[in-house]
Protein backbone atom coordinates (compact mmCIF):
# COMPACT_ATOMS: atom_id res chain seq x y z
CA UNK A 1 0.00 0.00 0.00
CA UNK A 2 2.91 2.34 0.66
CA UNK A 3 3.54 2.94 -3.02
CA UNK A 4 -0.15 3.54 -3.72
CA UNK A 5 -0.68 6.90 -5.34
CA UNK A 6 -3.31 8.67 -3.29
CA UNK A 7 -5.82 10.96 -4.91
CA UNK A 8 -6.42 14.36 -3.40
CA UNK A 9 -9.55 16.41 -2.79
CA UNK A 10 -9.80 20.08 -3.81
CA UNK A 11 -9.11 20.91 -0.13
CA UNK A 12 -5.80 19.06 0.20
CA UNK A 13 -3.70 22.22 0.40
CA UNK A 14 -6.15 23.72 2.91
CA UNK A 15 -5.77 20.68 5.19
CA UNK A 16 -2.00 20.88 5.01
CA UNK A 17 -2.08 24.61 5.74
CA UNK A 18 -4.09 23.82 8.88
CA UNK A 19 -1.43 21.35 10.00
CA UNK A 20 -3.63 18.28 9.58
CA UNK A 21 -2.19 14.83 9.97
CA UNK A 22 -2.89 13.13 6.65
CA UNK A 23 -3.63 9.44 6.04
CA UNK A 24 -4.72 7.30 3.13
CA UNK A 25 -8.44 6.55 3.22
CA UNK A 26 -10.59 5.18 0.41
CA UNK A 27 -7.75 5.89 -2.00
CA UNK A 28 -7.49 9.54 -0.94
CA UNK A 29 -4.97 11.54 1.06
CA UNK A 30 -7.27 12.73 3.85
CA UNK A 31 -6.99 14.58 7.19
CA UNK A 32 -7.35 12.17 10.12
CA UNK A 33 -7.02 14.94 12.68
CA UNK A 34 -6.12 18.60 13.12
CA UNK A 35 -5.79 19.44 16.83
CA UNK A 36 -6.74 15.98 18.11
CA UNK A 37 -9.54 13.45 17.78
CA UNK A 38 -11.03 13.94 21.26
CA UNK A 39 -11.11 17.74 21.05
CA UNK A 40 -12.57 17.62 17.54
CA UNK A 41 -15.22 15.10 18.58
CA UNK A 42 -16.32 17.21 21.54
CA UNK A 43 -16.26 20.43 19.50
CA UNK A 44 -18.66 18.89 16.99
CA UNK A 45 -21.05 17.79 19.75
CA UNK A 46 -21.00 21.26 21.34
CA UNK A 47 -20.47 23.72 18.46
CA UNK A 48 -20.00 23.07 14.74
CA UNK A 49 -17.48 20.84 12.99
CA UNK A 50 -16.51 21.19 9.33
CA UNK A 51 -15.60 18.04 7.42
CA UNK A 52 -14.13 17.54 3.96
CA UNK A 53 -15.97 14.53 2.54
CA UNK A 54 -15.08 15.24 -1.07
CA UNK A 55 -13.64 11.73 -1.34
CA UNK A 56 -17.19 10.40 -1.43
CA UNK A 57 -18.76 9.75 -4.81
CA UNK A 58 -21.37 12.18 -6.12
CA UNK A 59 -23.49 11.52 -9.18
CA UNK A 60 -26.70 12.42 -10.92
CA UNK A 61 -28.99 9.86 -12.48
CA UNK A 62 -31.13 11.58 -15.06
CA UNK A 63 -33.56 10.81 -17.85
CA UNK A 64 -37.27 10.00 -17.76
CA UNK A 65 -36.51 6.43 -16.67
CA UNK A 66 -34.11 7.52 -13.91
CA UNK A 67 -36.25 6.67 -10.88
CA UNK A 68 -37.60 3.42 -12.23
CA UNK A 69 -34.13 2.32 -13.29
CA UNK A 70 -32.46 3.29 -10.00
CA UNK A 71 -35.01 1.22 -8.10
CA UNK A 72 -33.67 -1.89 -9.83
CA UNK A 73 -30.51 -1.58 -7.69
CA UNK A 74 -31.98 -0.68 -4.29
CA UNK A 75 -34.88 -1.73 -2.01
CA UNK A 76 -36.25 1.79 -1.44
CA UNK A 77 -39.37 3.33 -2.96
CA UNK A 78 -38.07 6.38 -4.83
CA UNK A 79 -41.26 6.86 -6.81
CA UNK A 80 -43.11 8.13 -3.76
CA UNK A 81 -40.13 10.15 -2.50
CA UNK A 82 -41.17 13.79 -2.61
CA UNK A 83 -39.19 16.48 -4.36
CA UNK A 84 -36.60 18.07 -2.06
CA UNK A 85 -36.31 14.91 0.03
CA UNK A 86 -33.50 12.37 0.20
CA UNK A 87 -33.61 8.79 1.39
CA UNK A 88 -30.99 6.39 2.71
CA UNK A 89 -30.69 3.19 0.71
CA UNK A 90 -28.55 0.19 -0.06
CA UNK A 91 -26.96 -0.96 -3.28
CA UNK A 92 -27.71 -4.69 -3.18
CA UNK A 93 -26.12 -7.59 -5.03
CA UNK A 94 -28.14 -10.53 -6.32
CA UNK A 95 -27.46 -12.42 -3.09
CA UNK A 96 -29.03 -9.59 -1.07
CA UNK A 97 -25.65 -8.44 0.24
CA UNK A 98 -24.89 -4.76 0.73
CA UNK A 99 -22.47 -3.58 -1.97
CA UNK A 100 -22.66 -0.07 -0.53
CA UNK A 101 -24.93 2.24 1.41
CA UNK A 102 -25.90 5.58 -0.04
CA UNK A 103 -28.07 8.65 0.00
CA UNK A 104 -30.23 9.42 -3.00
CA UNK A 105 -32.53 12.42 -3.23
CA UNK A 106 -34.47 14.79 -5.40
CA UNK A 107 -32.85 18.21 -4.96
CA UNK A 108 -34.06 19.64 -8.25
CA UNK A 109 -36.58 18.46 -10.81
CA UNK A 110 -34.02 16.48 -12.71
CA UNK A 111 -33.67 12.88 -11.56
CA UNK A 112 -31.67 11.79 -8.53
CA UNK A 113 -28.58 13.11 -6.79
CA UNK A 114 -26.66 10.21 -5.25
CA UNK A 115 -23.79 10.09 -2.74
CA UNK A 116 -21.84 6.85 -2.20
CA UNK A 117 -18.80 5.81 -0.14
CA UNK A 118 -15.31 6.73 -1.34
CA UNK A 119 -13.87 3.22 -1.26
CA UNK A 120 -16.76 1.80 -3.29
CA UNK A 121 -17.50 4.58 -5.69
CA UNK A 122 -15.64 3.26 -8.73
CA UNK A 123 -17.31 -0.16 -8.37
CA UNK A 124 -20.72 1.39 -7.63
CA UNK A 125 -20.65 3.69 -10.63
CA UNK A 126 -19.36 0.94 -12.93
CA UNK A 127 -22.20 -1.32 -11.74
CA UNK A 128 -24.81 1.38 -12.28
CA UNK A 129 -23.43 2.44 -15.64
CA UNK A 130 -23.28 -1.13 -16.91
CA UNK A 131 -26.81 -1.97 -15.87
CA UNK A 132 -28.91 1.17 -16.19
CA UNK A 133 -31.34 0.75 -19.06
CA UNK A 134 -33.66 2.91 -21.12
CA UNK A 135 -32.72 6.54 -21.21
CA UNK A 136 -31.45 6.63 -17.59
CA UNK A 137 -27.98 8.13 -17.53
CA UNK A 138 -25.34 8.23 -14.82
CA UNK A 139 -23.31 11.40 -14.64
CA UNK A 140 -20.48 11.26 -12.10
CA UNK A 141 -19.92 14.72 -10.60
CA UNK A 142 -16.12 14.65 -10.65
CA UNK A 143 -15.82 18.42 -10.43
CA UNK A 144 -17.67 18.90 -7.16
CA UNK A 145 -16.37 18.92 -3.58
CA UNK A 146 -18.51 17.84 -0.63
CA UNK A 147 -18.40 19.54 2.77
CA UNK A 148 -20.33 18.62 5.91
CA UNK A 149 -21.02 21.04 8.74
CA UNK A 150 -22.30 19.24 11.81
CA UNK A 151 -23.22 20.14 15.36
CA UNK A 152 -25.75 22.18 17.34
CA UNK A 153 -24.40 25.51 16.06
CA UNK A 154 -24.26 24.47 12.39
CA UNK A 155 -27.70 25.92 11.70
CA UNK A 156 -26.79 29.33 13.17
CA UNK A 157 -23.65 29.43 11.06
CA UNK A 158 -25.45 28.45 7.88
CA UNK A 159 -28.46 30.78 8.13
CA UNK A 160 -26.06 33.71 8.13
CA UNK A 161 -25.20 32.70 4.56
CA UNK A 162 -28.72 31.67 3.50
CA UNK A 163 -31.76 32.27 5.74
CA UNK A 164 -33.88 29.82 3.69
CA UNK A 165 -31.82 26.93 5.10
CA UNK A 166 -33.74 27.27 8.37
CA UNK A 167 -36.74 25.91 6.48
CA UNK A 168 -35.07 22.59 5.75
CA UNK A 169 -35.96 19.61 7.91
CA UNK A 170 -33.79 16.52 8.50
CA UNK A 171 -33.28 14.70 5.17
CA UNK A 172 -34.50 17.61 3.04
CA UNK A 173 -32.29 18.38 0.06
CA UNK A 174 -32.28 21.27 -2.35
CA UNK A 175 -30.37 22.95 -5.18
CA UNK A 176 -29.68 26.45 -4.07
CA UNK A 177 -27.33 29.34 -4.67
CA UNK A 178 -25.36 29.71 -1.43
CA UNK A 179 -21.91 31.30 -1.11
CA UNK A 180 -22.45 32.69 -4.62
CA UNK A 181 -22.49 29.23 -6.23
CA UNK A 182 -25.06 26.56 -6.95
CA UNK A 183 -24.97 23.87 -4.27
CA UNK A 184 -26.72 20.61 -3.61
CA UNK A 185 -27.43 21.07 0.06
CA UNK A 186 -29.13 18.65 2.43
CA UNK A 187 -29.91 18.74 6.13
CA UNK A 188 -28.19 15.50 7.02
CA UNK A 189 -24.86 14.03 8.02
CA UNK A 190 -22.97 11.21 9.66
CA UNK A 191 -22.54 12.37 13.25
CA UNK A 192 -25.99 12.16 14.84
CA UNK A 193 -26.07 15.96 15.04
CA UNK A 194 -28.12 18.50 13.17
CA UNK A 195 -26.19 19.84 10.21
CA UNK A 196 -25.78 20.11 6.47
CA UNK A 197 -23.96 18.40 3.64
CA UNK A 198 -22.99 20.85 0.94
CA UNK A 199 -21.85 19.97 -2.56
CA UNK A 200 -19.96 22.86 -4.16
CA UNK A 201 -18.01 23.20 -7.41
CA UNK A 202 -14.41 22.08 -6.84
CA UNK A 203 -13.15 25.50 -7.88
CA UNK A 204 -15.10 27.12 -5.02
CA UNK A 205 -14.33 24.52 -2.36
CA UNK A 206 -11.40 26.24 -0.68
CA UNK A 207 -13.15 29.62 -0.61
CA UNK A 208 -16.30 28.12 0.98
CA UNK A 209 -14.21 26.03 3.40
CA UNK A 210 -12.27 29.08 4.57
CA UNK A 211 -15.40 31.21 4.74
CA UNK A 212 -17.08 28.69 7.04
CA UNK A 213 -13.92 28.31 9.15
CA UNK A 214 -13.75 32.08 9.62
CA UNK A 215 -16.74 31.70 11.97
CA UNK A 216 -15.39 31.13 15.47
CA UNK A 217 -18.06 28.49 16.12
CA UNK A 218 -16.59 26.30 13.36
CA UNK A 219 -13.48 24.10 13.53
CA UNK A 220 -12.12 21.60 11.00
CA UNK A 221 -12.74 17.97 11.95
CA UNK A 222 -10.81 14.97 10.65
CA UNK A 223 -11.77 11.43 9.79
CA UNK A 224 -10.79 10.21 13.26
CA UNK A 225 -13.59 12.13 14.94
CA UNK A 226 -15.92 11.44 12.03
CA UNK A 227 -15.56 7.75 12.89
CA UNK A 228 -16.07 8.16 16.64
CA UNK A 229 -19.04 10.47 16.08
CA UNK A 230 -20.80 8.06 13.70
CA UNK A 231 -20.09 5.16 16.04
CA UNK A 232 -21.79 6.98 18.94
CA UNK A 233 -24.73 7.73 16.63
CA UNK A 234 -25.00 3.98 15.93
CA UNK A 235 -24.44 4.50 12.21
CA UNK A 236 -22.81 1.56 10.44
CA UNK A 237 -19.76 2.02 8.21
CA UNK A 238 -19.51 0.09 4.95
CA UNK A 239 -16.37 -2.03 4.69
CA UNK A 240 -16.53 -2.60 8.44
CA UNK A 241 -20.09 -3.11 9.75
CA UNK A 242 -21.54 -3.71 6.29
CA UNK A 243 -20.17 -5.65 3.36
CA UNK A 244 -21.28 -7.61 0.30
CA UNK A 245 -22.15 -10.66 2.44
CA UNK A 246 -24.29 -8.79 4.98
CA UNK A 247 -28.01 -8.42 4.25
CA UNK A 248 -30.18 -5.46 5.29
CA UNK A 249 -31.98 -7.75 7.75
CA UNK A 250 -28.73 -8.88 9.34
CA UNK A 251 -27.54 -5.27 9.44
CA UNK A 252 -30.78 -4.17 11.17
CA UNK A 253 -31.44 -1.76 8.33
CA UNK A 254 -34.95 -3.00 7.52
CA UNK A 255 -36.20 0.61 7.58
CA UNK A 256 -34.50 0.89 4.18
CA UNK A 257 -36.81 -1.81 2.77
CA UNK A 258 -39.85 0.09 1.54
CA UNK A 259 -43.26 -1.53 1.99
CA UNK A 260 -44.15 -1.36 -1.70
CA UNK A 261 -40.84 -2.90 -2.70
CA UNK A 262 -41.20 -5.78 -0.24
CA UNK A 263 -44.69 -6.46 -1.58
CA UNK A 264 -43.42 -6.41 -5.15
CA UNK A 265 -40.29 -8.42 -4.18
CA UNK A 266 -38.53 -6.70 -7.06
CA UNK A 267 -35.10 -5.72 -5.72
CA UNK A 268 -31.79 -7.62 -5.92
CA UNK A 269 -31.59 -10.47 -3.43
CA UNK A 270 -35.29 -10.18 -2.58
CA UNK A 271 -35.62 -13.92 -2.11
CA UNK A 272 -33.02 -14.08 0.68
CA UNK A 273 -34.08 -10.82 2.25
CA UNK A 274 -37.78 -11.67 2.39
CA UNK A 275 -36.95 -15.11 3.76
CA UNK A 276 -34.85 -13.53 6.51
CA UNK A 277 -37.66 -11.11 7.27
CA UNK A 278 -40.06 -14.01 7.68
CA UNK A 279 -37.81 -16.51 9.44
CA UNK A 280 -35.13 -14.36 11.02
CA UNK A 281 -31.50 -13.97 9.94
CA UNK A 282 -28.64 -16.09 11.26
CA UNK A 283 -26.84 -13.05 12.65
CA UNK A 284 -27.83 -9.53 13.49
CA UNK A 285 -26.10 -6.23 14.16
CA UNK A 286 -26.10 -5.13 17.80
CA UNK A 287 -24.70 -2.28 19.83
CA UNK A 288 -22.50 -3.26 22.74
CA UNK A 289 -21.44 -1.35 25.83
CA UNK A 290 -18.06 -2.71 26.93
CA UNK A 291 -18.11 -2.55 30.71
CA UNK A 292 -14.50 -3.31 31.62
CA UNK A 293 -10.99 -3.46 30.23
CA UNK A 294 -9.74 -2.17 26.92
CA UNK A 295 -11.82 -0.89 24.02
CA UNK A 296 -13.04 -3.74 21.79
CA UNK A 297 -12.16 -3.02 18.18
CA UNK A 298 -12.93 -4.52 14.80
CA UNK A 299 -12.13 -8.23 14.80
CA UNK A 300 -12.56 -8.82 18.53
CA UNK A 301 -14.62 -11.95 19.17
CA UNK A 302 -17.94 -11.80 21.00
CA UNK A 303 -18.77 -14.61 23.46
CA UNK A 304 -21.90 -15.52 25.38
CA UNK A 305 -21.74 -15.37 29.16
CA UNK A 306 -20.45 -18.96 29.25
CA UNK A 307 -17.57 -18.08 26.96
CA UNK A 308 -18.81 -19.65 23.71
CA UNK A 309 -17.77 -17.56 20.73
CA UNK A 310 -20.94 -16.34 19.01
CA UNK A 311 -19.90 -13.36 16.95
CA UNK A 312 -17.46 -10.61 16.11
CA UNK A 313 -17.01 -6.88 16.65
CA UNK A 314 -17.07 -4.89 13.39
CA UNK A 315 -16.42 -1.39 14.81
CA UNK A 316 -15.51 -0.25 18.26
CA UNK A 317 -13.59 2.13 20.40
CA UNK A 318 -13.94 4.78 23.03
CA UNK A 319 -17.01 7.00 23.13
CA UNK A 320 -15.57 10.45 23.79
CA UNK A 321 -18.99 11.94 24.62
CA UNK A 322 -19.81 9.44 27.36
CA UNK A 323 -16.42 8.13 28.48
CA UNK A 324 -17.69 4.61 27.80
CA UNK A 325 -16.28 2.00 25.47
CA UNK A 326 -18.70 1.05 22.72
CA UNK A 327 -18.85 -1.36 19.83
CA UNK A 328 -20.96 -2.60 16.95
CA UNK A 329 -20.92 -6.31 16.19
CA UNK A 330 -22.87 -9.26 14.85
CA UNK A 331 -24.36 -12.08 16.95
CA UNK A 332 -27.16 -14.64 16.49
CA UNK A 333 -30.65 -13.11 17.02
CA UNK A 334 -31.08 -15.00 20.31
CA UNK A 335 -28.47 -12.67 21.84
CA UNK A 336 -29.77 -9.34 20.55
CA UNK A 337 -32.26 -8.39 23.25
CA UNK A 338 -31.39 -5.16 25.05
CA UNK A 339 -29.70 -6.01 28.35
CA UNK A 340 -28.24 -9.34 27.19
CA UNK A 341 -24.96 -9.95 29.01
CA UNK A 342 -22.14 -10.89 26.63
CA UNK A 343 -18.36 -10.81 26.59
CA UNK A 344 -15.89 -9.29 24.17
CA UNK A 345 -12.50 -10.95 23.88
CA UNK A 346 -9.68 -8.41 23.64
CA UNK A 347 -6.11 -9.76 23.41
CA UNK A 348 -7.32 -13.11 24.72
CA UNK A 349 -9.09 -11.63 27.74
CA UNK A 350 -12.90 -11.78 28.01
CA UNK A 351 -14.48 -8.56 29.25
CA UNK A 352 -18.09 -7.96 30.25
CA UNK A 353 -20.31 -6.31 27.65
CA UNK A 354 -24.01 -5.65 27.36
CA UNK A 355 -26.36 -5.27 24.42
CA UNK A 356 -27.68 -1.71 24.44
CA UNK A 357 -30.06 0.33 22.32
CA UNK A 358 -29.01 2.40 19.32
CA UNK A 359 -27.91 5.15 19.21
CA UNK A 360 -25.33 5.18 22.01
CA UNK A 361 -25.65 8.95 22.22
CA UNK A 362 -29.04 10.57 21.47
CA UNK A 363 -29.24 11.99 17.96
CA UNK A 364 -30.32 15.60 17.50
CA UNK A 365 -31.64 15.71 13.97
CA UNK A 366 -33.83 18.72 13.27
CA UNK A 367 -37.38 17.91 12.30
CA UNK A 368 -39.41 20.93 11.43
CA UNK A 369 -42.67 21.11 13.39
CA UNK A 370 -45.69 20.41 11.21
CA UNK A 371 -47.49 23.60 10.31
Amino acid at each position, binding site marked *: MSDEILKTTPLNAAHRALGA*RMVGFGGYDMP*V*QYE*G*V*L*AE*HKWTREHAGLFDVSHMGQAKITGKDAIEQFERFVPGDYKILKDHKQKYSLLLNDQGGIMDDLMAGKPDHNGLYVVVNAGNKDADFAHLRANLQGDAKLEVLEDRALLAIQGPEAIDVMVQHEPALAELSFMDITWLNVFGVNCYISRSGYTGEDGFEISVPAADAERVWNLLLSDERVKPIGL*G*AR*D*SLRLEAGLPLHGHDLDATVSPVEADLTFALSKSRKEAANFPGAERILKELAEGPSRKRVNLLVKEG*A*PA*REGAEIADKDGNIIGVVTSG*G*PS*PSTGNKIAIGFVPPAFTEIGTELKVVV*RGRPAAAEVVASPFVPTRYYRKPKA
Partner: protein
Amino acid sequence: MKFTKDHEWVSLDGDIATVGISAHAAEALGDVVFVETPDVGKTVAKGDSFAVVESVKAASDVYAPVSGEVVEANGALADAPETVNASPEGEGWFAKIKVSDASELDGLMDKAAYDAFLATL
Protein backbone atom coordinates in the same frame (compact mmCIF):
# COMPACT_ATOMS: atom_id res chain seq x y z
CA MET B 1 17.42 8.49 29.53
CA LYS B 2 17.88 6.16 26.57
CA PHE B 3 15.59 5.43 23.62
CA THR B 4 14.75 2.53 21.31
CA LYS B 5 13.94 2.61 17.61
CA ASP B 6 10.41 1.57 18.63
CA HIS B 7 10.13 4.85 20.56
CA GLU B 8 10.27 3.56 24.12
CA TRP B 9 12.44 5.31 26.69
CA VAL B 10 14.24 3.82 29.66
CA SER B 11 15.81 5.54 32.64
CA LEU B 12 18.04 3.50 34.94
CA ASP B 13 18.34 4.11 38.69
CA GLY B 14 20.50 1.41 40.28
CA ASP B 15 19.06 -1.77 38.77
CA ILE B 16 15.53 -0.38 38.37
CA ALA B 17 14.63 0.81 34.88
CA THR B 18 11.64 3.12 34.47
CA VAL B 19 10.08 2.64 31.05
CA GLY B 20 7.68 4.65 28.94
CA ILE B 21 7.02 5.87 25.41
CA SER B 22 8.78 8.88 23.93
CA ALA B 23 7.23 12.31 23.41
CA HIS B 24 7.47 11.63 19.68
CA ALA B 25 5.47 8.40 20.07
CA ALA B 26 2.84 10.08 22.24
CA GLU B 27 2.45 12.88 19.71
CA ALA B 28 2.20 10.41 16.84
CA LEU B 29 -0.44 8.32 18.64
CA GLY B 30 -2.65 11.28 19.40
CA ASP B 31 -5.07 11.20 22.31
CA VAL B 32 -4.28 8.20 24.49
CA VAL B 33 -7.52 6.71 25.80
CA PHE B 34 -6.37 3.44 27.36
CA VAL B 35 -3.15 1.93 28.66
CA GLU B 36 -2.64 -1.71 29.55
CA THR B 37 0.36 -1.95 31.86
CA PRO B 38 2.07 -5.28 32.67
CA ASP B 39 1.34 -7.27 35.82
CA VAL B 40 3.83 -6.84 38.65
CA GLY B 41 6.02 -9.93 38.94
CA LYS B 42 5.94 -10.65 35.22
CA THR B 43 9.28 -11.47 33.63
CA VAL B 44 9.87 -9.76 30.30
CA ALA B 45 12.57 -10.16 27.69
CA LYS B 46 13.96 -7.26 25.71
CA GLY B 47 11.78 -6.77 22.64
CA ASP B 48 8.68 -8.47 24.13
CA SER B 49 5.37 -6.69 23.79
CA PHE B 50 4.76 -5.91 27.46
CA ALA B 51 2.15 -3.15 27.40
CA VAL B 52 -0.48 -1.71 25.07
CA VAL B 53 -1.31 1.91 24.45
CA GLU B 54 -4.51 2.87 22.67
CA SER B 55 -5.56 6.03 20.89
CA VAL B 56 -9.11 6.68 19.73
CA LYS B 57 -8.27 4.95 16.47
CA ALA B 58 -5.98 2.06 17.30
CA ALA B 59 -4.14 -0.13 19.77
CA SER B 60 -0.31 -0.23 19.66
CA ASP B 61 2.11 -2.59 21.36
CA VAL B 62 4.82 -1.26 23.63
CA TYR B 63 8.01 -3.32 23.64
CA ALA B 64 10.25 -3.92 26.64
CA PRO B 65 13.51 -2.01 26.06
CA VAL B 66 15.30 -4.20 28.62
CA SER B 67 14.88 -7.67 30.11
CA GLY B 68 13.93 -8.23 33.72
CA GLU B 69 11.08 -8.45 36.20
CA VAL B 70 8.27 -5.92 36.38
CA VAL B 71 8.37 -4.53 39.92
CA GLU B 72 5.88 -1.70 39.55
CA ALA B 73 3.24 -0.56 37.04
CA ASN B 74 1.89 2.95 36.75
CA GLY B 75 -1.60 2.38 38.09
CA ALA B 76 -2.49 6.06 37.66
CA LEU B 77 -2.73 5.53 33.89
CA ALA B 78 -5.87 3.40 34.31
CA ASP B 79 -7.93 6.43 35.30
CA ALA B 80 -5.83 9.06 33.56
CA PRO B 81 -4.42 7.64 30.31
CA GLU B 82 -4.14 11.21 29.00
CA THR B 83 -1.11 11.57 31.31
CA VAL B 84 0.82 9.78 28.55
CA ASN B 85 0.17 12.78 26.26
CA ALA B 86 0.68 15.39 28.96
CA SER B 87 3.94 13.98 30.31
CA PRO B 88 5.16 11.08 28.17
CA GLU B 89 8.72 11.10 29.46
CA GLY B 90 7.73 11.86 33.08
CA GLU B 91 4.50 11.06 34.92
CA GLY B 92 3.29 9.03 31.97
CA TRP B 93 5.77 6.21 32.62
CA PHE B 94 4.40 2.70 32.10
CA ALA B 95 6.37 0.34 34.37
CA LYS B 96 9.51 -0.22 36.40
CA ILE B 97 11.64 -3.21 35.53
CA LYS B 98 14.36 -4.75 37.70
CA VAL B 99 16.90 -5.26 34.98
CA SER B 100 18.61 -8.63 34.62
CA ASP B 101 21.38 -7.37 32.33
CA ALA B 102 22.23 -3.68 32.50
CA SER B 103 24.52 -4.04 29.47
CA GLU B 104 21.37 -4.22 27.33
CA LEU B 105 21.12 -0.45 27.70
CA ASP B 106 24.43 0.01 25.92
CA GLY B 107 22.84 -0.63 22.55
CA LEU B 108 20.15 2.03 23.04
CA MET B 109 20.28 5.62 21.81
CA ASP B 110 20.91 8.64 23.96
CA LYS B 111 18.73 11.74 23.47
CA ALA B 112 20.97 13.24 20.77
CA ALA B 113 21.15 9.98 18.84
CA TYR B 114 17.38 9.48 19.14
CA ASP B 115 16.69 13.01 17.88
CA ALA B 116 19.01 12.31 14.94
CA PHE B 117 17.14 9.04 14.34
CA LEU B 118 13.78 10.88 14.37
CA ALA B 119 15.12 13.30 11.79
CA THR B 120 15.61 10.36 9.41
CA LEU B 121 11.98 9.18 9.66
